[in-house]
């Protein structure tokens, strides 16, 4: 399906080799899959004798029905998970890729419909949610000529405006580092360069992206962040996380709702496949802009190719992978707390919310300082034992990183840890409580008097 665009993991900032394909390639691919599944070439839904252009759920669908099918999934995810309250101000993370482009289109449509109902209603008691768009500009790490970068950014802006979005936030990634220091770009580059592992570097940038989005949302009063993460991206993440030893924390990343962050994150496109979203962009001429995508190396890219091969063998494989992950136990932060929802909450949705009567409401575990993964037992034990023998703050920071981040992100060599953490913005490392450690940190106290660095950590 949509072979030319082969979006193996469309989603925000996935950095895959996505590109718009010609419609011939899409038609060929559709025809091929129609033929393969022995599906009629007429729309199986509206039966109006209209030609089928896409296959979904084993049925050939015309453009209209296909669109309605995807929109239906989006809307169901939003409403049945109470993702957007009438009072919410939603920040949509737009990467330029097809998945987030569709998310943008769909949330805009939902909003338009809500406004129509509001206009038509007598009471107008409940407001309509707001939508803004954020694009994290990573061009500082990209080696393309300035002119091309500027044009791509203009394109991104024009896409937002074409959908009627008034608030567009184009934020450079280095802003995450610029809080106290002016040289955000320098610190960002240095921190990224300290990471040896290709996969580690990519994953670190992914974490930074989320921090950037959180920062935009906090500074501008947005109450929800919406990502375009689709089933294909989630399937890739399930396998990548498995391969990185993150089986314990994996369920946290694949749910509709993630309230680990200050501004909760929702993923309404979780049940749509990347190729479906790409196809919709082509059918509806929804403009995408992926010129600034960087090629992916390392494990994430290997997983993406693997999933691509699986998809060729069986188009539903990605759904199966996501379903498997859904059978794993989610965390308490994968539900909204009921605060602020009471007014708008139909009783059928109550089970989706944390039960304030039991301990489920607050997550009492530890989250990795870098990637936010909840700590498993052995990581917790390691942290506890480090607290007792920590000599300096860096030891505590390191113990607050999960085993995967310790391996692939933290630079190798104990002496480098300190420098690495010093580059990270204060609001990041400040989350680690270094004050309540049972004894004071001896080395920090005498650091300035030491002549030799005989650190053997």
């Amino acid at each position, binding site marked *: 399906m949509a072979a030319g665009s082969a979006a193996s993991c469309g989603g925000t900032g996935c950095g895959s080799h996505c590109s718009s394909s010609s419609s011939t390639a899409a038609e060929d691919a559709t025809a091929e899959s129609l033929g393969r599944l022995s599906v009629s070439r007429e729309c199986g839904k509206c039966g109006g004798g209209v030609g089928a252009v896409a296959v979904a759920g084993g049925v050939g669908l015309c453009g209209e029905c296909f669109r309605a099918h995807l929109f239906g999934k989006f809307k169901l995810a939003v409403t049945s998970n109470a993702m957007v309250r009438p009072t919410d101000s939603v920040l949509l993370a737009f990467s330029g890729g097809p998945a987030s482009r569709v998310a943008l289109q769909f949330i805009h449509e939902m909003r338009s419909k809500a406004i129509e109902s509001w206009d038509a209603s007598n009471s107008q008691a409940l407001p309509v949610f707001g939508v803004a768009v954020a694009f994290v500009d990573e061009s500082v790490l990209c080696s393309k000529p300035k002119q091309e970068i500027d044009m791509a950014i203009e394109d991104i802006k024009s896409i937002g405006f074409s959908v009627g979005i008034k608030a567009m936030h184009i934020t450079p990634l280095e802003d995450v580092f610029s809080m106290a220091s002016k040289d955000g770009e320098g610190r960002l580059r240095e921190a990224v360069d300290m990471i040896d592992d290709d996969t580690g570097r990519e994953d670190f940038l992914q974490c930074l992206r989320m921090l950037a989005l959180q920062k935009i949302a906090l500074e501008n009063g947005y109450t929800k962040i919406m990502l375009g993460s689709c089933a294909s991206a989630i399937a890739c993440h399930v*396998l990548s996380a498995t391969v990185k030893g993150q*089986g*314990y924390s994996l369920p946290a990343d694949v749910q509709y709702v993630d309230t680990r962050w200050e501004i909760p994150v929702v993923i309404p496109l979780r049940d749509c496949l990347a190729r479906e979203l790409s196809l919709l962009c082509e059918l509806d001429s929804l403009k995408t802009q992926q010129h600034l995508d960087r090629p992916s190396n390392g*494990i994430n890219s290997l997983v993406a190719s693997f999933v691509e*091969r699986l998809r060729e063998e069986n188009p539903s494989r990605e759904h199966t992978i996501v379903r498997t992950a859904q059978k*794993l136990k989610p965390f308490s932060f994968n539900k909204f707390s009921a605060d602020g929802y009471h007014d708008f909450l139909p009783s059928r949705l109550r089970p989706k919310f944390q039960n304030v009567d039991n301990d489920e409401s607050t997550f009492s575990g530890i989250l990795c300082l870098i990637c936010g993964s909840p700590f498993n037992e052995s990581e917790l034990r390691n942290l506890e034992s480090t607290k007792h023998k920590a000599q300096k703050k860096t030891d505590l920071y390191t113990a607050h990183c999960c085993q995967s981040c310790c391996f692939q992100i933290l630079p190798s060599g104990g002496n480098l840890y300190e420098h690495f953490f010093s580059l990270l913005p204060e609001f990041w490392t400040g989350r680690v409580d270094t004050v309540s450690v049972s004894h004071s940190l001896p080395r920090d106290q005498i650091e300035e008097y030491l002549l030799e660095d005989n650190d053997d950590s």
Partner: protein
Amino acid sequence: MDSAAIDGARQPPARMGSRLCTRCGERKAALKRPKTLEQICRECFYVVFEDEIHRTIVDNNLFNSGDRVAIGASGGKDSTVLAYVLSELNRRHKYGLDLFLLSVDEGITGYRDDSLETVKRNEIQYGLPLKIVSYKDLYGWTMDDIVKAIGLKNNCTFCGVFRRQALDRGAALLKVDKIVTGHNADDIAETVLLNILRGDIARLSRCTFITTGEDGPIPRCKPFKYTYEKEIVMYAYFKKLDYFSTECIYSPNAYRGFAREFIKDLERMRPRAILDIIKSGENFRISTTTRMPEQGTCERCGYISSQKLCKACVLLDGLNRGLPKLGIGRTKGVSGVDSDGEQQDKRSERDRSSLQGKHGNIDF
């Protein structure tokens, strides 16, 4: 597993032969350890290889002194090295085990008869008594007969299901307390991935257990759970162990397996990924709302089963009634468990032919 050893993977490469072993510092480095990329001499390799297995056995309480233990022996590298190392460790660390070789003759001419010759040689070389059980005796069908009846699709399913029972039957005849198999880290990692791909949450939750079947008649365990396949090959190579290395003649043509290839690529990129997959598998927590199959016993033969009839009985039924597709494919039922099905779903057929492991339904 100690991640400190795995961090050895970060060492800068150096020309082999010009370096000393990083463990003993005395002898010349003869090899790069696949698991950690450490450059060590042969002797140190034997030591770390054997020691890690010993640690796995001890830390997981795999055996009790006086246990009678059957080693599932196919004549292949995993089971040959297992037999060799286990006898050696049994002697060196005084586990007090009574070891046997247990072989299954599936009746594959030109393959199994050759590999069984290897096992017979192992019996003499390692001084371990050998018992062979055959499909012909147990089921009345050889794999040659089965392939003639059903062709080359799904034959691995039959073989895998039958072999599992055959091992248990053989073990019962030998009156052993435990079965050990040579499943290695690569096998287990592959199984974790395949179970994710297939949505088989029930198997996913069990497949990383080092010991299984503890609530059944004869538990079985995998001392090689953390041992890399490449290291097993390396060990057998340097020790010049006698093993049979041809792929089963009934394997689907040009079969490499998506998951196996992916794991090989992964290993090249990051050797510790194989152990990380296993660690993930160990750490998966199944949601309490997920329906899991209940384990009971087969109405016909009493073997462990989550359905009325165990898989082997169902398949055998199919063969004897000339309905070879009985038991193949999926019908509505508890997730991940194949139940009787006469209608073969095209999609699951496609699934099976590409996702079968080397032993058919990898069902540990």
